[in-house]
């Protein structure tokens, strides 16, 4: 009997408290970022040679694609909201080809910009702390002397009768790319999700077009790595769908 009363009393008090806050105060809440993968104007499919080699002959297939999105900030009218331990390993090998980040307990404000980095900041990149999705025993880790892969792409290039393995593991602190997205309309916690397009093709065909046959793998060569990083700086854009207007970045 007693127990039931305590429980009921608790619930009433919590309801009263939250009603008070709802009426008299702007609430903190969650902000959702949704990333939708595609390959140029095609959908992302794994394991099939569907995509033309941007700088040469043949078609390529994708076996794995993963990328660290990090250091997410929301720029508000009164404050900057900085997500802590913000290291998110985005992958799209699910049915919806979508990766979702939910930021909970974002304080109330009108936010006009989202900042996202592609890669891992220097401090975390040289640390063994398993923060966020950083995992020194994970697929994205090189040895601790080197740090993390910021982006991993593995697949194959089919040319006439040959198959060439493709391995692009791009890292190194200098290849961290900070991006700022100005939202067409400010958002508040609890608003509809913010949608981003992730164009995997940008990795090979944006700043420079890459012939995968001449550059089938990128790992530790600093110049090659920064070439791909210049390209992946164009990986993300705000989606036009869901009534968002295209924005220049």
């Amino acid at each position: 009997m007693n127990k039931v009363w305590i429980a009921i009393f608790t619930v009433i008090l919590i309801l009263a408290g939250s009603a008070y806050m709802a009426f008299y105060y702007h609430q903190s809440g969650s902000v959702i970022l949704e990333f939708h993968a595609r390959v140029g104007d095609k959908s992302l499919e794994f394991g099939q040679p569907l995509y033309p080699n941007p700088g040469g002959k043949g078609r390529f297939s994708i076996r794995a694609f993963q990328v660290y999105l990090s250091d997410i900030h929301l720029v508000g009218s009164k404050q900057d909201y900085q997500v802590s331990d913000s290291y998110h390993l985005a992958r799209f090998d699910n049915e919806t080809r979508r990766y979702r980040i939910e930021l909970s307990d974002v304080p109330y404000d009108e936010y006009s910009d989202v900042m996202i980095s592609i890669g891992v900041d220097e401090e975390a990149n040289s640390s063994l702390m398993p923060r966020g999705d950083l995992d020194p025993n994970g697929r994205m880790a090189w040895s601790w002397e080197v740090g993390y892969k910021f982006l991993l792409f593995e697949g194959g290039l089919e040319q006439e009768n040959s198959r060439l393995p493709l391995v692009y593991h791009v890292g190194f602190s200098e290849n961290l790319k900070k991006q700022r997205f100005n939202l067409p309309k400010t958002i508040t916690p609890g608003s509809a999700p913010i949608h981003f397009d992730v164009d995997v093709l940008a990795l090979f065909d944006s700043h420079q077009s890459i012939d995968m046959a001449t550059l089938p793998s990128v790992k530790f060569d600093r110049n090659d790595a920064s070439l791909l990083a210049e390209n992946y700086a164009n990986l993300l854009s705000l989606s036009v769908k869901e009534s968002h207007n295209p924005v220049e970045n």
Partner: protein
Amino acid sequence: MALLPQQTGQMIASVDCELMSMPKVAIIISGFAVLLLAVAIIVLQPTGPQTRPLLSFSAPFVFGHFNIPADNPLTAEGVKLGRRLFYDPLLSANNRVSCATCHLQQLAFTDGKAHSVGVSGIPLPFNSMSLANTLWGPQHFFWNGRAQSLEEQALMPIQDPNEMAQDMNELIDKLRADEVYVRLFGAAYGEISAKNIGRAIASFERTLISANSKYDQFLRGELKLNTQEERGRKLFMAHPDAKASLRGGNCIDCHSQFLTSGFNTQFDGFTNNGLEAEETLEPGLEALTGLAADRGKFKVPSLRNIALTAPYMHDGRFSSLEQVLDHYNGGIKLSSTLSPLIFEANNQQNDSTLSLNLNKEEKQALIAFLHTLTDNTFINDKRFSDPFSKQVQHNE
């Protein structure tokens, strides 16, 4: 220094400044509500046996996060029961085979055979697997990943006709007739059931942590590896890049740097390391997922204590580490699901052979490094040994 690993958790930012600007009344009300809720949770908690959380449990910080299922917390009682079950041949139809028949502590919980043999005497299609550090790495068990938790896995060999061939209901009757088990199950979970057998064995297995090899001591800064071992370590940890003049054995592409196991995320810890050509590829992970892209993919095993766990690979095809290295260095067979990381890894530029092209000294260095993964503390740890053996019972 063994640090207790941190549990995963999202941290909340900027909450402090938000609280400051909130009206005081709201703070007081919500504070009061939270307090009452806490009281209610404590009062309303379901009652079960009084168990003690396992205190002696620690693991190196570099092993990273792990998860223990919420419905099977590690308790001293559960682990004690699990250890007894693991070593008890009562769990088999003929009362002669226990888990430890095929998972011997002295061999880092493997059995030294290419194909394990149980109650039926018919060799199993697979090589026994080490049970060290199962808390980390892929959380899909068996070479083809068909068990999705240790709890689920534990009940499978018991009932497999070739392993322990034990009918589950019969086993529960056998256990209920045994006073010791009635007491141990009572203390750990309340009742004897298939589910609780699985829970107890899984709990014991989670405590099997190997973290005191020469490599661990090196990581803790307690000793230096010798020149050959250090060379092997560097090769293990590097994907070769002939263009950047970096020599490597590329092992770390699949065997993670500290755990040396496969990756924990989804099925990233399953891959095809080139044992078979297209025509002879075995199903592997495809048996579970039904995807042709998973054909020939097997669980990347931890290499901890690898010098003790011969023969090697899922079918025990290699009897020595030399043979394993010869496989990676020239023995790779091409197939459609072969890992591109193996396909592409070559220490020689403009060479189209499927080989790492490591030289003899480099292969020996890698083997020397693999030997630093042997953990004598682990294979002699009394907490993991047979509780039925007389010598040990004294210590309890």
